[in-house]
């Protein structure tokens, strides 16, 4: 027997084994990484679920307080106000007592309006009754002219009712963004736009204020950005901040198809 086939066959057999070892190690790593990715995804999903549950509990509590304020304290204030009005009818006008009661009636009215406003923020009944688009339009109308800022709303596409959890989250994010713009941006104009497409809902809040550095703000605490981020994460929405010296734009994209598939 010639030695050449032995040499060639032996060498190729060992080379094949070397290739097999390398391929096995690479394949094994791919599997390990895929497995870890799967675990990571599950952990992220669990975290999101936890966040959702926390936000839901918070939302329920806010809703309960809002309803209590509106139905219980609001009614009691009306009752006190009616008693004051009754008292006013029984005393002479233009006296000190009448002036005190008149003042008390006005103060009660102001308190009632304040409580109504707080209760509507805590429990946006417009959202449940007429949907996100209407609730946002209403809040923009209510806030328009506040501190001299022009606040406008625009609906693009046809409104479609979505899950309450998604609508309330988008509503809260929009409110937080408008609130931030009013408080920190020195803007004279705020625009809220909601786009409805077959695939997603895109909410955009822009202002013509002096902008901010998002990365700097994220490091600090107590500035609603973290709150906005965690709310967006809870519903699996994509959040984008664009800021320059000529203004800020916050975009939140909520994917409809993905949610339906879940």
């Amino acid at each position, binding site marked *: 027997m010639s030695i050449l086939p032995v*040499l060639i066959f032996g060498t190729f057999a*060992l080379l094949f084994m070397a290739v097999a070892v*390398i391929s096995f190690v690479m394949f094994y790593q791919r599997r390990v990484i895929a497995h870890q990715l799967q675990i990571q995804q599950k952990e992220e999903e669990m975290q999101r679920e936890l966040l959702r549950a926390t936000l839901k509990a918070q939302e329920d509590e806010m809703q309960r307080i809002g309803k209590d304020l509106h139905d219980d304290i609001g009614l009691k204030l009306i009752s006190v106000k009616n008693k004051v009005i009754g008292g006013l009818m029984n005393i002479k006008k233009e006296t000190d007592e009448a002036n005190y009661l008149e003042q008390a009636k006005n103060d009660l009215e102001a308190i009632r309006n304040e409580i109504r406003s707080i209760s509507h923020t805590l429990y946006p009944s417009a959202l449940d009754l007429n949907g996100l688009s209407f609730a946002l339009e209403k809040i923009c109308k209510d806030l328009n002219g506040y501190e001299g800022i022009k606040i406008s709303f625009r609906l693009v596409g046809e409104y479609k009712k979505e899950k309450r959890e998604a609508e309330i989250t988008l509503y809260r994010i929009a409110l937080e963004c408008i609130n931030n713009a009013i408080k920190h941006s020195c803007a004279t104009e705020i625009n809220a736009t909601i786009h409805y497409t077959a695939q997603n809902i895109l909410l955009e809040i822009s202002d013509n204020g002096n902008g901010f550095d998002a990365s700097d703000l994220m490091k600090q605490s107590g500035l609603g950005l973290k709150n906005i981020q965690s709310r967006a994460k809870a519903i699996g929405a994509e959040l984008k901040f664009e800021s320059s010296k000529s203004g800020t734009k916050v975009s939140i994209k909520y994917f409809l198809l993905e949610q339906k598939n879940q």
Partner: protein
Amino acid sequence: MRYTFFLACLSSATIILPLTVAFIRAKSVFQNQRLLSFYLMNHFISEVITISMALNKMRNLETMLFFSFIEGILVILLYKSVIEEISIKRFLTILLPFYILGFLGVYVFLDFKLFIPSFTYPFHQVVMLVPLLLFFADRMKRMNEIFLSENPMFWITCGFLFYYSGSIFYFALHDTLFIDYPAISKNGWLIHSTMLVVMNLFLAMGIFKIKKA
């Protein structure tokens, strides 16, 4: 004979490739840079000396063996410093004296009286496979840390693995080929040269993957 010699020179010259890459990446961050540099220098010097000896028609087999012995020690030390698993590290600590004693023992008792060393080279090649396989075993325990293709030692190990496994048969049949089948010996040398080129390419790739400082 001239063809074989030309082939040997050509394949040996490919060591310049990893050396050049190592020179470019001189300021890189790699914990085993010194050992790797020693290995490349040893490789380069051995090629220069053995080829010079061959050119002057001098017997260079023992010189090659000496450099292979140094190479073996450097490879084991390199993997001892790379491997993180303590039990595998301990195994390599035992492997080093085993290799030194084994290499010298095989040469003195089996090959010393032979015209062509027939046992020392295969022993060297087989022992060299051990740290390489242990490196993969160690990496398999740390799969999540880094992608293998991004690890310089992965490429270097692949190069060594191809070279040492691919040339075992050639070295095992070295004396038979040289004495009884001189015509076939040329083909054996071709296999060895190819493996050497492959190893140098992998070494260059591995050194290229080392991150810059």
